[in-house]
């Protein structure tokens, strides 16, 4: 709703430079910007309840259709980047915690600090310069025209963006894995398990990872949500037609149905991810389940 307080009537975006007052009035009627703000909001809320996100002012297509097309880019991109970051962060994080006294333990933490310090777009540009422009291994950007009808091409096109997200997100995740592992390493239960005769790897896998995973999962939830919403930058660097670039374009064109639609769907996704993270935590840690049952009794 606050969006509508921005200067600039969406009707103007629809018209050519030489439009006269009558045409402007007509366009305002068409987009509904002639109504009082509260009526515009009621209209919006009403159609939202029916899962009708309206029609784009600019393209005339249903918003939900446009979002669906964009999600086929953003969701796989975020998920694959996310998976890659876990694959990078978990083994390396545990390694750097367990072998903190070795040279590579220190090296891993130093590199991860660097990864956090470097902005994501810069990593993207760097990867393009090295892997696309110099070595011609991957495309520098763009999304295949037929989309997922040709999975191979899509995976090829998404390789560098996924790598970018994986590296940057992996670097920050690594720190959490490392400190969680360090906590576990110093914990009483691990010492007890060792005293009861379990070998160090056995104790770590059986008790350590499970305990350490609880805070990691909540961080993962936040990171995944950030990746989905933060895809704007990556999508721009790699010229991908995702949700982020749709939002950017819609704001530029004052295409409010599209802006609201993207925000609505993004919020929905973030809530779903939060919910998923909660559920996962309960699966991992039986104590959380018991507490929940106890609370409701």
């Amino acid at each position, binding site marked *: 709703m606050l969006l509508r307080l921005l*200067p*600039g009537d969406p009707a103007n*975006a*629809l*018209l*050519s*430079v*030489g*439009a006269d007052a009558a*045409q402007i009035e*007509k366009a305002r009627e068409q987009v509904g910007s002639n109504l009082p703000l509260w009526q515009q909001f009621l209209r919006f809320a009403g159609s939202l309840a029916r899962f009708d996100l309206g029609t784009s002012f*600019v*393209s*005339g*297509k249903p918003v939900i259709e*446009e979002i669906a*097309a*964009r999600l086929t880019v953003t969701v796989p991109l975020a998920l694959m980047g996310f998976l890659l970051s876990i694959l990078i962060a978990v083994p390396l994080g545990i390694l750097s915690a367990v072998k903190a006294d070795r040279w590579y333990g220190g090296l891993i933490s130093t590199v991860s600090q660097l990864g956090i310090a470097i902005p994501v777009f810069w990593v993207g*540009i760097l990867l*393009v310069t090295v892997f*696309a*422009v110099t070595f*011609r291994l991957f*495309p*520098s*950007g*763009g*999304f295949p*025209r*037929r*989309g997922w009808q040709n999975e191979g091409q899509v995976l090829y096109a998404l390789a560098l963006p996924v790598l970018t997200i994986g590296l940057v997100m992996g670097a920050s995740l690594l720190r959490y894995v490392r400190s969680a592992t360090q906590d576990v390493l110093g914990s009483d239960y691990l010492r007890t398990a060792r005293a009861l005769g379990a070998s160090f790897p056995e104790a770590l896998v059986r008790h350590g990872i499970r305990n350490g995973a609880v805070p990691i999962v909540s961080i993962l939830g936040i990171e995944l949500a950030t990746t989905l919403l933060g895809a704007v930058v990556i999508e*721009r*660097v*790699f*010229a*991908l*037609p*995702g949700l982020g*670039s*749709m939002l*950017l*374009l819609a704001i530029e*064109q004052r295409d409010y149905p599209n802006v609201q639609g993207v925000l609505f769907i993004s919020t929905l996704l973030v809530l779903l991810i939060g919910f998923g993270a909660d559920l996962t935590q309960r699966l991992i840690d039986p104590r959380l389940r018991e507490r929940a049952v106890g609370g409701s009794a």
Partner: protein
Amino acid sequence: MTGTIIGFGKTAGQARRARGATLAAATLALALSTSTAVFAEDAKFDPNASITIGSLYEPQNLDNTAGAGQGINEAFNCNVYEALFTLTDAGDVQPGLVAEQSVSEDGLTYTFKLRPGVAFHSGDPLTAADVKYSIERVTAEQSKSSRKKSLSTISAIETPDDQTVVVKLSARSISLPYNLSYVWIVNDAAKDLNASEDGTGPYRLDEWRRGSSLALTRNDKYWGTAPTNGEVVFQYFTDATALNNALLTGAVDIITSVQSPDSIAQFKDNPDFTVTAGQSTTKQLLAFNDRVAPFDNVKVRKAIARAIDDKKLLTSIWGEYGTLIGSFVPPTDPWYVDLTAVDTYDVESAKALLKEAGFADGFTFKLDTPNYDPHPIVAQFIQSELAKVNIKVEINVITANEWYTKVYKAHDFQATLQEHVNHRDIVFYGNPDFYWGYNNPKVVDLIKASEAAANTDEQTAKLKEANTIIAEDAASNWLYLYPQIVVSSSAVSGYPVNGLNSQFFAYGIKKSEQ
């Protein structure tokens, strides 16, 4: 009613192929022959090649009467939709879907005979009713076409038979064929032109993936010469660097219009790429508000024109590219006159003129500068140049939106910077209510008379005269003409180099077999 009849014959269809200007010899050969003999010479190109064109201008929808933006002209003009007349890349108007035209002596009735045997992509034949519908679509109340006003002299359109269209005018309009080159001929039965198409051109729309690409495939039932490629894909980018990388890595074959001079270097001395510099119609202006002091004084305007070294400015922005112009008219307009000698760079005479005008000690003015490139740099350059003649420039940076409301609509400014992109737009100087407020009754008359001219020679003569007066009056300061730079992989050729009105004819593009 006796009138002139101009028959275009059947070679017109082939002659219009001649507009791709880069390969003059090859295209001439094409124009002269319809047989495949020509292709023997050019045996190496792949007739079914897929050409990927990289562009920064994605259309907002697919209808040029619905505010789709310049991107739709780039993708669709003469590729998907054709018009009664065609504006060629060299700037001439040639017949398109018109086979024969006659004009009544009073110049108020145009009769067009349509080319026979033309069909829309849907299979419907082209009829006079489609043409009437198409013109009325542009002039309709809800139309957002930028050309609406120029067709306002049309008073009635009649269709005596399926192949004949009679256009009646309320006043003479020598530019009618030119203005009709902007009117796409669409099927009157077509639905949802925002997201689909039904034209007569050499390509059909295959798929539009919003935010990403727009694909056209060859129309095998095309009435004219078949395209020299099988498919054209416009790939859209929002970031110029990403677009350049795509060309560097072979993901696109051509960039339609390079806007950042710095990026040309990486392609220029590389044998894998071709850099072509054509002439755009985009003029960089220092526009004065001619209504207000001190810019209501011709001497002051001329002095400023002489105090600014346009050549140095152009070189510092575009290097070796771009053209100096002495007026608002670019070389691709038929009424171009070389006026670069008027008010050339001469600081001493600028000082003398200022003294005559009573500003020996200079003055201060506010320059409204749009916040996007290249305006801020141009503003600083002007500031330092004018300091030499004691004129102090206060740079006021504004957004595009502010420019529109403050300068264009409210005329609330002293001087401003702006780029003017249109072709044949000298007519703005004939409108005293235009934002710059230039008002010379002689020019107003000449421009009005030029539109009522009996033939194009008369029109050209009148506009040349008007153009010269406008330049002598230094109505504005025309800093330079942008270059139109197309960069391509050296495997492709045959694309338009001037890109007039953002058009990008794709049917002559050839890609060598690799």
